[in-house]
């Protein structure tokens, strides 16, 4: 997901305050910024929300790669607006994290120095125009599956940010599918482009949900805190079940020889995921990890004079106002 393998810290025995806190969460009462909360809850949320925000920000890059080459003016407008929405989502999420006592600049610094993570999915390259469609369809499709439940998560500012994000993001998936549809209805070369994109994005999209439940050490705590509402495998299964018929409609083949409907389970069975690849990408060895961070670092460093100058001007103006009043 956009937040993967979020560390929940080491559990200690709950004191009375913590028991009361857990009780409130169990009762469905939202936690708000000024409420008392266990330090582990606060830190975990900062990690999770900032990781989510970083994913939105870094996530602008793979699709942004095609803005200048979008093949029609309509598609260009749609893509520009979409990538801009992602910046907005990053902004909403950074703001939510800031209510937990961390500044945006600290979070950005954590991203740039590699202390903070972002979703593994954005370390894959967008090689063709069809990748833009595949990202919308598969990646946004996977993201929204996780984000809709998060609108009910226990931390108020996070839940409210998610509501806003979901409102804007629900149709990104449709946009992606619409793009794939027009490719699949197009020339053989366009259709081949769509199939190639599905081949490359299918497995990374399934990896997005994070390691299998058995290996997901922090899941139980996150679920108890209601900042994770479904397990990785539950969401992954949902994704497969939802996506396979969509691929069939497009006339595309899901690149999994083991994929078949299991009538007994009422779900699709799917093949083994290459978790080694996933951990490798998370560790920083994906195809684009270095490049993505370099671009973000450069944007930030190149923009420093701009940010500083606007503060300097605001300070001068404030001084001038004081001088004038005196």
């Amino acid at each position, binding site marked *: 997901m956009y937040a993967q393998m979020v560390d929940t810290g080491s559990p200690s025995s709950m004191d009375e305050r913590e028991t009361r806190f857990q009780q409130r969460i169990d009762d469905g009462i939202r936690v708000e910024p000024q409420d008392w909360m266990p330090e582990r809850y606060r830190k975990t949320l900062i990690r999770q929300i900032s990781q989510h925000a970083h994913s939105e920000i870094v996530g602008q890059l793979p699709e942004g790669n095609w803005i200048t080459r979008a093949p029609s003016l309509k598609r260009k407008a749609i893509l520009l607006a979409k990538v801009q929405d992602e910046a907005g989502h990053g*902004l909403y999420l950074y703001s939510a994290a800031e209510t937990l006592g961390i500044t945006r600049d600290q979070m950005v610094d954590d991203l740039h120095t590699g202390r903070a993570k972002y979703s593994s999915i954005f370390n894959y390259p967008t090689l063709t125009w069809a990748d833009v469609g595949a990202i919308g369809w598969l990646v946004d499709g996977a993201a929204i599956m996780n984000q809709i439940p998060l609108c009910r998560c226990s931390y108020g500012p996070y839940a409210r940010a998610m509501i806003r994000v979901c409102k804007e993001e629900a149709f990104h998936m449709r946009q992606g599918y619409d793009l794939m549809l027009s490719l699949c209805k197009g020339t053989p070369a366009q259709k081949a482009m769509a199939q190639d994109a599905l081949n490359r994005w299918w497995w990374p999209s399934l990896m997005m949900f994070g390691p299998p439940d058995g290996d997901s050490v922090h899941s139980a705590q996150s679920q108890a805190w209601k900042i994770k509402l479904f397990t990785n495998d539950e969401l992954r299964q949902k994704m497969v079940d939802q996506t396979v018929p969509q691929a069939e409609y497009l006339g595309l083949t899901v690149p999994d020889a083991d994929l078949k409907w299991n009538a007994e389970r009422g779900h699709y069975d799917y093949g083994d995921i290459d978790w080694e690849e996933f951990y490798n990408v998370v560790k920083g060895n994906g195809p684009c990890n270095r490049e993505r961070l370099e671009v973000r670092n450069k944007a930030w460093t190149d923009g420093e004079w701009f940010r500083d100058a606007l*503060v300097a001007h605001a300070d001068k*103006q404030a001084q001038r106002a004081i001088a004038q009043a005196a």
Partner: protein
Amino acid sequence: MKNQWPLWEVFIRSQHGLAHRHVGSLHAPDATMAVNNARDVYTRRNEGVSIWVVKSIDITASHPDDKAELFDPAQAKVYRHPTFFPMPEEVKGL
């Protein structure tokens, strides 16, 4: 790191004449730019016709520990609500 833009809370009034509503926050070097940024961040989908911004640090909030004494007493005052006064159905205009 040294020159962070302060955080602002953004309030938007929608087209329908309702009161300004808190929609989120953003960073800006001063109030004028906060309004501009709010326009570019929070009204991209026709959400509003008026923007207020206020520095987050300028907001004074009630303390959650005071919740019981601040808000619980109101629960006992049912007579403040219209439903407390059942009216005869046949009488109109009340």
